[in-house]
């Protein structure tokens, strides 16, 4: 018998609509005289927003994940990329994306909608090369901002200006390649929206500290994705604020994601998208994955609070600051993004371990499941160091090998067997007769 009540998320349908609308608007942009551009989920999408309200982007990682979810199309894409001579151990999102481009097939029907330009930043080595190749293949212009200035805790004026100056340069470049006049008011609006959406998403994750957890990670994957699509958009910022209010309601009324919650887990990195059933399998044990540094901090922006806890970063608007100039907007945008939790481990795995242990402590996590993700060199970087740090802190931890976007590297039976062993280690039996 269920211990907690549960009910579907009211925002679910809106989340689906927004996501499909995003891909459709990108596809149709040219019909209405608009512009299309491509880059990663971490690109500074607020900057091209200054070109006009008819500018639409497609971000590569969520698009690669959408392709991965369609196993047949993903296989075709992988094979198309490999047929071009690309190695099988490259980023699997990138191979999916490139395959879609080579095959001229769009995951949402029709032909691959060619972008007009690429706009990217460079912290993960795959990211820079990804769009360089798209630009060369499609013969379109490409701009990349180098953000590798070290961890946020070491940020100083020189490091910040290294990024801000490139941002200024990128605006001149955008004007030149599009022939459009740049509008600072649209940039300012986009920066405000980005701060709002990424802080609101962090608030949603913060609310998942409650017991029972109002959201499980499988559901969170379908929600955090909006921030990876267009974190600068008003629509997404508004949606995340609505979602936050709904999650707050669930917390206040003890509405659980998993009705029989008795064990709280945390994962890491992208999941194997074709096998999200792993998270449903956990429910057989009354286990809920409350999230991860990945779901919390890929897009969510956080800060250390004076009481030593970790919480959503206070936006400039919440501080009463008003943004009035291009330079001020760019400085805020750079500083905001450089504090992104998922950017920190590129410099030192210990920073990531520290944040993971903070989540374990603050969210009441009983065990950690680390996905040794062969598909993402960037986010898997240092993950065994994280495992060691977590284990040394006395927190039970298991690893499983897979690939976020290439199902050929995931052994479902073996992973489920390993989960069985891990749950047994935690002293948690399967609830159902299904064992």
């Amino acid at each position, binding site marked *: 018998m269920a211990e907690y009540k549960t009910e579907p998320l009211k925002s679910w349908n809106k989340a689906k609509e927004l996501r499909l609308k995003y891909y459709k608007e990108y596809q149709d942009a040219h019909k209405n005289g608009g512009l299309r551009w491509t880059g990663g989920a971490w690109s500074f999408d607020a900057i091209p927003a200054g070109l006009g309200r008819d500018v639409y982007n497609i971000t590569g990682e969520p698009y690669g994940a959408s392709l991965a979810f369609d196993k047949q199309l993903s296989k075709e894409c992988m094979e198309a990329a490999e047929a071009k001579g690309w190695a099988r151990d490259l980023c699997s999102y990138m191979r999916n994306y490139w395959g879609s481009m080579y095959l001229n097939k769009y995951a949402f029907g029709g032909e691959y909608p060619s972008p007009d330009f690429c706009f990217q930043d460079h912290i993960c080595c795959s990211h820079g090369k990804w769009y360089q190749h798209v630009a060369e293949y499609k013969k379109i212009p490409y701009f990349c901002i180098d953000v590798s200035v070290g961890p946020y805790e070491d940020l100083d004026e020189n490091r910040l200006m290294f990024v801000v100056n490139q941002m200024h340069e990128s605006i001149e470049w955008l004007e030149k390649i599009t022939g459009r006049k740049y509008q600072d008011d649209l940039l300012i609006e986009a920066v405000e929206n980005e701060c709002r959406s990424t802080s609101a998403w962090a608030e949603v994750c913060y609310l998942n500290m409650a017991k029972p957890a109002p959201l499980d990670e499988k559901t969170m994957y379908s929600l955090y994705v909006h921030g990876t699509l267009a974190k600068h958009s008003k629509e997404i910022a508004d949606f995340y604020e609505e979602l936050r209010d709904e999650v707050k309601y669930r917390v206040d009324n003890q509405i659980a994601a998993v009705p029989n919650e008795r064990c709280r887990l945390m994962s890491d990195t992208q999941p194997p998208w074709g096998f999200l059933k792993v998270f449903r399998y956990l429910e057989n044990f009354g286990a809920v994955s409350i999230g991860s540094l990945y779901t919390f901090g890929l897009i969510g922006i956080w800060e250390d609070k004076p009481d030593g806890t970790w919480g959503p970063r206070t936006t400039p608007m919440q501080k009463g600051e008003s943004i009035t100039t291009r330079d001020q907007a760019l400085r805020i945008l750079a500083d905001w993004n450089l504090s992104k939790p998922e950017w920190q481990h590129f410099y030192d795995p210990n920073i990531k371990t520290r944040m993971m242990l903070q989540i374990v402590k603050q969210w009441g996590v009983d065990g950690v499941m680390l996905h*040794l993700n062969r598909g993402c060199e960037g986010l898997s970087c240092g993950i*065994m160091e994280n*495992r*060691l740090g977590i*284990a040394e802190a006395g927190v*039970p*931890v*298991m*690893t499983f*090998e897979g690939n976020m976007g290439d199902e050929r*590297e995931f*052994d479902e*039976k*073996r992973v489920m*067997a*390993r989960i*069985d*062993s891990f749950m*047994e*280690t935690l002293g948690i039996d399967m609830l159902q007769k299904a*064992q």
Partner: protein
Amino acid sequence: MITAGIDVGSKTIKVVILKDGRVTGRGMKAAGLEQAESATVCLRQAAAEAGIKESDIEQIVSTGAGRKAVSQANSQITEVGADAVGTVHVLPEARTVIDVGAEEGRGIKVSAEGKVVDFAVNEKCAAGAGSFAESMSRALEMTLEEFGQISLKSTRSIPMNAQCTVFAESEVVSLLHAETSKEDISRAVHDAIASRVASMVRRVGIEQKVALIGGVAYNPGFVNSLSRSLETEFVIPDDREYIGALGAALVAVERSKGNK
């Protein structure tokens, strides 16, 4: 009280029957493609050795990769859990368990009570398991027993660069063409397997004493290589391939008492 533990491994099925805490019957059979059928035959074999009828068994616990295929089992336990219980029962001083079977290697840190503290399992690759040695012995046209023994006669260490069994076989052929002795090739293969297993075990940490179980623990070449790689000696129980089944039978005793 009579209980049974059935360990359905990827290659063989092992059964242990316990009567009042004492092993009275054992059975072993190739798993084949029909695991359920093989398990039934194996259980019958063990019951015959114990001089009991199958219906005399009060509680059966299955373990191993194919544990869910055993219809006679009252419940299951994972191979990690069964290894821990079985090993600490026969070697109470063991705190690290290394189990290397045909297709899987495991490193387990255990408590004095036989509880799993941490574990690591090899990933989707056979290069750190017994089937790798078997495949290489075939390439050298030797029995597995011969292959393990000659490794001890090797006088030099040759690194094997291949990271997978398929390429390793090509490398063995190249070494043969280079007139490398079979003794040295055998050691190179065992060193390669040991290196994989050692790195997996180091993930959970080495705490003395270290028990080595599983069928591959019969291979002296592998034991020697792993001992050098981990710079430690092992305690190796008799009937090392039955430890998982023994652990399952012991869990069956506990469950029968209603303690679990």
